[in-house]
């Protein structure tokens, strides 16, 4: 369609028209590239926003002020577990997308994990999850209570912007000595006092079915 009138135009006009066409094409390509760039950037930004913890100070507070670490245990680095959960260090925020998705279904965000043990043996872990809407905590707790296999104690810490739920878990299959039990109990007691948390339920020493 465009080629027909250009045939009767003088050659100068033809050059101008060709330049206009190439400029339009260039503009079109730039717009396309821009759209892809925006889309790509928006995806990346969105992901970063999802993974970046809103409350990075909580881990520092937990470790510095709670005194939760049971006597005889230390913070240990288990590279396989740390990498699998997408943590930069122990303690750290979990960035494993499967776990983030699982928590977001309950309305939870910013999950973190603290690993305690001796050598390379994991003896206790603390998993914290933040709930912007505290009314959604009950559903999460009900789900936890139905998992009878787990040996966990669950605490709630209300804040100005929501509530933290902290799950202290020990291995369902390992046998803990009396000394370990009392050290864990002491640690949890210190945490409850220092962080002013509320115990929701304790099934640490129940025999799994």
């Amino acid at each position, binding site marked *: 369609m465009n080629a027909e009138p250009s045939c009767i135009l003088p050659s100068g006009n033809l050059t101008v028209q060709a330049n206009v066409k190439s400029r339009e094409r260039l503009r079109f390509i730039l717009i396309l590239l821009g759209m892809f760039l925006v889309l790509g950037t928006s995806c990346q930004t969105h992901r970063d926003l999802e993974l970046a913890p809103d409350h990075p100070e909580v881990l520092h507070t937990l470790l510095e002020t709670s005194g939760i670490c049971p006597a005889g245990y230390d913070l240990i680095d288990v590279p396989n577990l740390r990498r699998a959960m997408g943590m930069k260090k122990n303690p750290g925020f979990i960035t*494993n997308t*499967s776990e983030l998705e*699982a928590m977001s*279904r*309950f309305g939870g965000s910013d999950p973190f994990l603290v690993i305690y043990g001796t050598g390379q043996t994991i003896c206790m872990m603390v998993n914290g999850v933040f709930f912007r809407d505290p009314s959604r905590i009950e559903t999460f707790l009900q789900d936890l209570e*139905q998992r009878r296999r*787990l040996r966990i104690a669950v605490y709630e810490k209300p804040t100005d912007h929501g509530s933290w739920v902290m799950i202290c878990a020990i291995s369902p*299959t390992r046998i803990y000595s009396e000394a370990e039990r009392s050290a864990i109990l002491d640690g949890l007691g210190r945490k409850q006092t220092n962080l002013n948390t509320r115990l929701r339920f304790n099934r640490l020493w129940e025999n799994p079915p």
Partner: protein
Amino acid sequence: MPALGHLVILLCLMAGYTLAAGAPSTTHEKSEPAPQPATGRVSGILTGANLQQQRASGWVKRTATRLDRFFFNLSAPSHARRNATFDHFFDDRGLDSSEQDTVLRLSPGITVKEGEGTDASFRFSLRLHLPRFENQADLVIANFGQDDTVDDTFRTGRFSDSLLEEETDRSISLRATVRETRRLRLSLSTGVNFRPEPVPTLAARLRLEEREGIHVRRLTPALFWDQRDGLGQNARLDFERHPSPEWKQRASTFLLWSETSEGIKASETLSWIHAPSRRRVQSLHLGATGKLEPSTIMTAYIVRYNFYRLIYKNWVYLEVEPGVQFPRERDWETTPFVNIQLHVLLGAVR
């Protein structure tokens, strides 16, 4: 099967009868009390058996969870893979805690049929539920080729409504539901049958269901391919009537064609089913089987009564099926048979 195997199966069945005799008769599931445990020595044996069942069930469930995680991690990107240590301490909370449906069914049985003597059998089927795949995939391992068009609740041990069921050494298949709505279900399965050489199989099955009041119409066509027997297709058409929650009447037409079926095989079954609970079902079936092509020939008439009930706790069922066959190959002679099977369930038993 060696004589010792026959003896073990016979002993199991006798134990089943003993338990069944001690169990109270029941009418409704809610009012149905669990069968009372026997006293003394028998009680000790039963307690031990119960403990073993719980251990074995725990093992089955743990194995299913591990396999589910393994298959999920094979397909998931590295940042989404589940970690066994984390799940050991906290569980995968993305999964519903009640989603574990894996059941291992062990079914020793014995069939006595006139003219053929006694035939002992041992069937097993393990249905590994894989909840991480949106609850739409099952891995099935069994020692017989199981046809999904047969309603599981009313499946009989030896004389099913299907012409396709056959004994194999082992069968491993992965079954996935591609699409499921209230009226439609499309499922695919792929696997290997060992006869004893491995034979790959593929199948696609569609189920269309229409409900109008107490009437149900169901069409279940399937297309399958087997490396040894080639292509084939079958279709099942059911007309059901549910006059009450406990009663069901059904007319089933089943057609089968495959490259090795020598024409089109067909069966027609009329069934009256009384199921006061999932734990007690009895049914009467009148059936005829034959060929439609190349010429219409009846091959057998069958009348059978099936009784299936829970006999111990929630994991031992007994199935008794007396019946009469009139097969063409025996010149329509009355051929009585009785099929007795014990079903032991391990895993996520409800």
